[in-house]
């Protein structure tokens, strides 16, 4: 067993941390980037591409760098610490995974080089007003039309949906609203006739969009994966999403915990630093435990996200999200409380960490959603479901 990074991975991690350290060294810098027309910096996005970050999960054949979950973990952790606004998650993790896992060779050849070069940005348009966290709950339809499709429907809270060139849209080519079969993934140009995108700021300083699709025509080559069998691809995308969010959350929680520790040692009340109060020491310890539990589960996610057994993999990633969500809530709330009033202000970086942690909880499934999944799977340890210890 080895939890250490290889020399190459360490080099990558140091590189990203340096880049993020200079691009997001202060809250003022972040605010300036958020205020830009796209809600992030195109210059920093280009730097991501120059450093090769946008090519990490793609194989060398596909034009990428053949990185795995551990490389993504290192990147996401650093992006978390910097609260970076660039659409790495939307483009590389979400859209990129969909194309990589479901696309034909032709589609991959058409899209991936642009992602790697930083010239193509994607967004994943799957949530609908009734779907909550169920990826298979799809009311948007795609009717066959000649050799292509005609899409009608609406998507909600599409992360970075207002700055993407192309949208990965889940649509129903067959079946009823909550059928697992009959879902197709389609790559839709954001400027296709019939696509209306209404962008807005999100609670965590990023951007999202409401998107309506009215009689949007795409060709047969827009299809990602098999027609009617898009759900397995989408579920894989969600697993990669959870692994990435777990790493991002750990980056944030580690930074926020450190800030809180520093604050306890410097804030003076009652004639000394507030760290003198044992009750606050214990609360800092509880935060620390929650952070380390989350870190372990982020490693578990990296380990399991390419596991071959689909059922085990799905349960594992759901378990990861449960722990991450719980740690996000505890660390975020306690950090604000231990800071007192200052933790409640827009001027304080810690408050922005707290907000992002809260939003991570509601991305790709909240705690009850994933607890149910783990429970439906009978837990994580298969042997525990057997009748007796004999015959294992």
């Amino acid at each position, binding site marked *: 067993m080895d939890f250490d990074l290889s020399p190459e991975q360490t080099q990558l991690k140091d590189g990203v941390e340096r880049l993020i350290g200079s691009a997001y060294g202060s809250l003022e810098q972040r605010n300036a980037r958020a205020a830009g027309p796209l809600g992030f910096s195109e210059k920093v996005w280009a730097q991501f591409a120059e450093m090769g970050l946008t090519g990490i999960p793609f194989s060398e054949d596909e034009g990428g760098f053949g990185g795995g979950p551990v490389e993504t973990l290192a990147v996401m952790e650093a992006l978390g610490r910097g609260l970076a606004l660039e659409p790495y998650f939307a483009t590389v993790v979400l859209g990129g995974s969909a194309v990589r896992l479901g696309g034909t060779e032709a589609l991959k050849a058409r899209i991936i080089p642009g992602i790697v070069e930083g010239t193509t940005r994607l967004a994943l348009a799957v949530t609908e007003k009734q779907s909550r966290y169920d990826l298979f709950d799809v009311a948007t339809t795609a009717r066959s039309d000649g050799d292509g499709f005609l899409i009608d429907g609406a998507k909600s809270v599409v992360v970075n949906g207002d700055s993407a060139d192309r949208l990965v849209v889940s649509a129903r080519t067959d079946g009823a609203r909550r059928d697992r079969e009959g879902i197709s993934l389609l790559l839709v140009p954001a400027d296709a006739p019939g696509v209306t995108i209404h962008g807005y700021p999100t609670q965590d300083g990023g951007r*999202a969009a409401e998107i309506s699709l009215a009689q949007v025509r795409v060709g047969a080559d827009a299809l990602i994966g098999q027609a009617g069998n898009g759900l397995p691809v989408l579920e894989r995308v969600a697993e990669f999403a959870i692994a990435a969010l777990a790493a991002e959350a750990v980056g944030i929680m580690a930074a926020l915990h450190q800030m809180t520790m520093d604050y306890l040692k410097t804030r003076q009340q009652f004639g000394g630093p507030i760290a003198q109060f044992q009750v606050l020491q214990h609360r800092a310890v509880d935060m620390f435990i929650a952070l380390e539990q989350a870190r372990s589960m982020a490693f578990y996610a990296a380990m399991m996200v390419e596991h071959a057994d689909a059922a085990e993999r799905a349960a594992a990633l759901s378990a990861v999200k449960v722990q991450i969500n719980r740690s996000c809530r505890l660390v975020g709330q306690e950090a604000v409380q231990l800071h007192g009033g200052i933790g409640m202000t827009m001027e304080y970086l810690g408050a922005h960490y707290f907000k992002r942690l809260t939003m991570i909880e509601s991305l790709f499934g909240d705690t009850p959603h994933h607890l149910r999944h783990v429970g439906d799977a009978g837990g994580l340890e298969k042997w525990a479901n057997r009748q007796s210890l004999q015959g294992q």
Partner: protein
Amino acid sequence: MDLRFTPEETAFRDEVRGFFRTQVPAEIRAKVSEGRSLTREDYVTSQRILNARGYAVPHWPKEWGGQDWTPIQRYIFTEEMLLAAVPLPLQFNCYMVGPVIAAFGSQAQKEKHLARIANLDEWWCQGFSEPGAGSDLASLKTRAVRDGDHYIVNGQKTWTTLGQYADWIFCLVRTDPAAKKQAGISFILIDMTTPGITVRPIITLEGRHEVNEVFFDNVKVPVENLVGEENKGWDYAKFLLANERTGIARIGLSKERLARVKRLAKEMPAGEGMLWDERDFRDRVMNVEIELKALEITQMRVVAAQGRRGDNRPDPASSILKIKGSQLQQATTELLLEVAGPFALAAPVRTGELSNDWPFDYDWADAAAASYFNNRKVSIYGGSNEIQKNIIAKAVLGL
């Protein structure tokens, strides 16, 4: 023992309930219910409606506009107000500076201010906390130096809630730097238009302008604005903080928010049906509802004991109200956040007003996260929950 209201109390409840729900504008109550900011006008409108009926300051002495109500009636009154999502009369006016002036102020101060405070003709804010004096309030440094008929005030206050609207600020200032901490503090009233006062906004994490920093640079305050005696300010502050406990548990507010959570959950699709159909969600709501009921009865015990004793000395059990009450307020916002689910991500594009050009299906969801974020304050201000526990450990449990 009888936990039920008497017929008279029930009649009183129906009367105030009817008043709140018919006389206070529905738009203002909707903003409160949805956790959106109120404008200065909203506060003024609502408080003047209450005041016209003698409802703005029922807990004040009768000669200054108070009502001869029993503690139970006062309790019913406040809870019904919260349940109807009526904005509480401005706390700084009605629960803080008003009672202090009524109890300790000069006759001139009473005549000058009390009626205007009750009617919100004067807007007051609270200048207690400083950058270096939060939980340790008695370490405050703002100085007031006597100079003939005036005090010259220098220093800084912070976290001044709604100070941007204020005409007056009541401050704790240090008048005797030689005395030990609490002993050298005075309570003074300062006109916000006095030269040398600067108000700077602090934006809270959900993006609202609710609090401020207030700077004092050689501000000249007439000596007649001192409340009570010089260097006795700490006693008045303690009186004020004890008064602040009235309704601090905000049970009515939590109940109202819980009702809203249920209503929204019944309309929020989840799985085959609605979120409310899901057993585990209902369990989580019930956990909060049950604790709220227990706290409600705790609060009524406190109120009844007060009525029996016939005084306003806080009951030891009342210390529980702030802690549990704030936790439950926060728990209800967590439930709201859960109902909003993935849609909580959207930020408040609208600030206070409703508009029709928002393409979002859940036009309340943008306020869900904002309420959750904003309500983190309730375990910090008015004596943080850690400080409250210290008090209970010492004063109640004798540890």
